[in-house]
């Protein structure tokens, strides 16, 4: 694993797609997030270590005897074939409504692989409330969260937000990847309870899970309509091709007034 880090050491991280989301340039471009726990991979993903030139401050220039320390920053590679959010970002989402310091309610956290990247994005001052109903993946999620203290694992049914009302604050963003036919309703219930006015909603929609008989475009349009009824104003919609087939990502803003 150490070799993997060394191998890509020459790469540069030079572009910030969104606050906390970067592109590493190398033989091929890679989507990366800054590792919250340097030295540790979460699910065997590659890590890239970059020398950050020491900031040349006026103080250091005058004080000649302390040599400027070059610090290393470690990034983790984020695979768009494994994460819908990563696919959405590479697809060109304009606003993912999460940045360093954000509070994010993540519905459908699964084993926590994507959640770990969201934890990287919001950083030590942010919080990810990660909800997952399956006990099997819940165990992995809890394990991951023990290493990342900005993740609060919640093993509970996202259909019943009141069950976990003692564990969640008001959040800036709800991300949902629950693959359930009543996904829009689940998102709405959680938004009414926990999402700040003007907060962001990012939903991954798998057409098959909602209605396998209708054409995907029709399913997506219907889901956007349902989100509107939950007072979520749609702002962006894109398909997750070529990473996922018949998936769409919809981004909206929660409006309680009007």
């Amino acid at each position, binding site marked *: 694993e150490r070799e993997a880090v060394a191998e890509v050491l020459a790469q540069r991280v030079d572009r910030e797609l969104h606050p906390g989301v970067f592109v590493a340039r190398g033989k091929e471009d890679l989507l990366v997030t800054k590792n919250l726990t340097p030295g540790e991979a979460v699910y065997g993903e590659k890590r890239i270590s970059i020398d950050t030139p020491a900031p040349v401050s006026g103080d250091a220039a005058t004080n000649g005897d302390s040599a400027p320390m070059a610090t290393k920053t470690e990034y983790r590679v984020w695979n768009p074939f494994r994460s819908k959010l990563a696919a959405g970002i590479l697809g060109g989402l304009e606003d993912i409504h999460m940045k360093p310091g954000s509070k994010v309610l993540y519905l459908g956290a699964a084993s926590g692989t994507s959640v770990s990247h969201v934890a990287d994005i919001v950083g030590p001052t942010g*919080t990810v*409330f990660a909800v997952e109903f399956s*006990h*099997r993946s*819940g*165990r992995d*999620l*809890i394990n991951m*969260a*023990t290493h990342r*203290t900005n993740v*609060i*694992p*919640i*093993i*509970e049914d996202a259909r019943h937000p*009141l*069950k*976990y*009302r*003692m*564990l*969640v*604050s*008001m959040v800036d963003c709800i991300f949902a990847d629950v693959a359930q036919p009543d996904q829009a309703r689940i998102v709405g219930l959680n938004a*009414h*309870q*926990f999402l*700040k*006015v003007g907060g962001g909603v990012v939903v991954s929609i798998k057409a098959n899970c909602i209605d396998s008989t209708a054409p995907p475009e029709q399913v997506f349009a219907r889901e956007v309509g349902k989100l509107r009824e939950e007072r979520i104003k749609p702002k962006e919609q894109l398909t997750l091709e070529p990473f996922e087939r018949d998936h769409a990502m919809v981004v909206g803003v929660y409006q*309680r*007034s*009007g």
Partner: protein
Amino acid sequence: MSVDYLLHESSVGYAVFSVRMQADTVGARLKEVQEAHTDLARFGKMVQLVSFAPFQGASQALENANDVSEGIMSDYLQTVLESNLPKAGKKEKKEGHPGRIECETGETSELAGDLLRGLRLHAEKLLKSLQTGDVSRAQLGLGHAYSRSKVKFSVQKNDNHII
């Protein structure tokens, strides 16, 4: 319908607030009304803290979190409510708590929802004995404890392979 009292259930404890001012149903969705809930200075005038009953330690917090998630009124919560709500009438609406015995069904109107959202948003500021970070630290501990107990006592624990 007017709301008299609010119960805020959080990772640090229970807080009872009385409602001093509230919007009417007709105006609830007005922009100005919604903004009042987001603004701490204005929201602080709408509610008043009656009492804050912190949990004494992690195990008590977990017991209460489990009860709240099942819709059960714990003895502790009952004591908190009885000592902080006026006895007469027993008609007060205790928000957010679909109560079991003395209280009526929790009020679920949008007005109540807005007030409870305000409490959730400003809790750390409204509960003067708390410091910044107290709530999130308690959430982290409670989240782990709650989730671990769920996974541990699972009936459909199906990944214990016998090799």
